[in-house]
């Protein structure tokens, strides 16, 4: 995306809620469309990038784009209602207006995958930033090897998009591995830590790219497991979460060592962040 059609440092652009989907008791999806038709038509994003969503009178919050990059009519965001802004966004109905600016940051290195396997590791709501990757890969199936989707949740009821996981699991060359630390009746997947599933993952460590998203502790364990399987460090990526208020590398909140996560990330190569991830409190 070049600078001319970037909707960035502000002010935001008005957008309308097209649909609101309740994914779980606390997780919902907002499908938005920019009010300015030309801006909507020009809007492009790369999987892994995020937008700043503005709730009138309350403030902005960074949310990764989860819709399909080929979808031109809407911009999708899956959000957990936790803070002031996200709880407020949760109350929106179709027709309501929000502000939107973006997309920001560096997305997933999909060009680097070549014909290799794609391993997606997510925890909690971590799945949202990689759902667009799944869509991307499925649309261009011939350009990728096997697709492995590994998802861990704390409680079985935290898992959203169950039907989608079932659907993906039935596709050729696609493996879905799901774990919940605490199961529930009729839970069809693994009960335990998500890292226990790595030995089952069916990919070629010599020709694969792994992308992780979720709690940092989970990603550290997942990285250990993937590297132990023989995946080179240079083929391991993760998406970081930090406080972001400006999204253009200016306000300073998202700094992680020398990086501004909003601008230099949120997607990083494992090697770039590994040294600091070992220290709590950065």
């Amino acid at each position, binding site marked *: 995306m070049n600078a001319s059609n970037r909707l960035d440092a502000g*002010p935001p652009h008005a957008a309308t809620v097209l649909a609101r989907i309740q994914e779980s008791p606390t997780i919902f999806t907002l499908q938005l469309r920019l009010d300015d038709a030309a801006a909507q038509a020009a809007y492009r994003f790369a999987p892994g990038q995020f937008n700043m969503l503005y709730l009138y*009178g309350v403030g902005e919050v960074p949310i990764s784009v989860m819709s399909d990059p080929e979808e031109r009519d809407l911009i999708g965001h899956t959000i957990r209602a936790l803070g002031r802004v996200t709880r407020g966004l949760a109350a929106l109905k179709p027709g309501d*207006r*929000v*502000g939107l600016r973006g997309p920001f940051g560096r997305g997933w290195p999909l060009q680097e995958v070549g014909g290799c396997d794609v391993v997606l590791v997510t925890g909690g709501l971590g799945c949202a930033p990689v759902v667009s990757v799944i869509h991307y890969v499925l649309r261009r199936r011939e350009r990728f090897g096997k697709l492995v989707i590994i998802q861990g949740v704390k409680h079985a009821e935290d898992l959203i998009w169950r039907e989608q996981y079932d659907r993906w699991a039935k596709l050729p060359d696609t493996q879905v591995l799901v774990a919940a630390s605490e199961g529930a009746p009729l839970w069809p997947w693994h009960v335990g830590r998500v890292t226990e599933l790595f030995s089952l993952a069916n990919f070629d460590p010599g020709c694969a790219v792994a992308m992780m998203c979720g709690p940092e502790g989970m990603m550290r364990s997942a990285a250990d497991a993937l590297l132990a399987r023989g995946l080179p460090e240079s083929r391991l990526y993760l998406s970081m979460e930090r*406080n972001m*208020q400006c999204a253009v590398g*200016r*306000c300073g*909140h998202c700094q992680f060592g020398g990086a501004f996560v909003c601008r230099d990330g949120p997607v990083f190569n494992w090697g770039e962040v590994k040294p600091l991830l070992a220290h709590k409190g950065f």
Partner: protein
Amino acid sequence: MLSSQSDRAGFLPLAQLPSLLAQLRERGYQCLGPTVEQGAIVMREIEPPEDLPRGIQAEQTPGRYRLTSDPLNRYFAWSSGPQAIKPHTFAPKESLWRVERDETGSLQFAAVHPPVVRQAIIGVRACDLAALALQDAHFLREGRRDAHYAQRRDHLFLIAVQCAQPASTCFCASTGDGPTPTAGYDLALAELADGFVAVAGSDQGQAVLDDLNLAWATSQQIEAARQQGASAAAAQTRSLPGRHLRDSLMSRLEHPRWDEVAARCLACGNCTAVCPTCFCHAEADTPALDGAASEHERIWDSCFGEAHGHLHGFNVRADIRGRYRQWLTHKLATWHDQFGRSGCVGCGRCIAWCPVGIDLTEEVAALTEGQP
């Protein structure tokens, strides 16, 4: 005609100092200069030009700042005040944009631009200029110019004055940023007993000098100014162990000293507010009471505050140890990754204005002890 070389410097007699300010005012500048307010030197509008305070020194030690009298009755013997140029370029609080909402709920966004004010500041220090260059690098980054900062920066006229009387907290000589201004000014002055050696650093500065019709500074005067700078540098007692502390500090992230300093640190954030290079800010909305509009503002923020590391459900830096470590390692280590040099210009404000007198140079010495 004076050139910008110091050997082509002019000499501004003491009695002509007001005419320099008058000259700037004629050119449409609001003139800011040292003013005594609440026991400290702050930069406020000088009106009339004769109002520049004289004969004041600032005695500064960790956690302590006192104005005293200068036996030499100089204009600029007060080393530094609680703020550098920062508040005049990066405003502590300002509106970035505004949104209006009508009855149908539709939103209209509009950028808010600050009023254009041409400001001239007299009494800027070499460390302040070095800090401004770093703020420029951040706020005026190629392709991402901050409109609010840029507008103020573009209309700034800076009159630097050599620091002849450093405070005990100063260590600009060790960071290579002072005490004699070398770049980044429109005019630079060195105060001698009977007047100022004056050089221009920009075309605008040169034009002002030209209109003042000054005599050339003599080689004795120029040498006296040079000597004065050398003595001021030699008089500094504090220092950092080097200008490239990145690797040394980043290899000591679990050093016990972090816990020790955290026990003394109030996490009040004063060091970050007075630091001339700190740039963190928060953004927040203030909705109008009639429900029809909202202002989106930015305000100075600090990595010592709770909100800085706040994430959904937890805080990345919950304790003071993590916050102090974030501040110090950003300033002296990871700043190199971002801007190609350390973020510390040796002004010593974080030492003097820390209410409990935590001394950055002492902490760094303890953290890097025994390391090259």
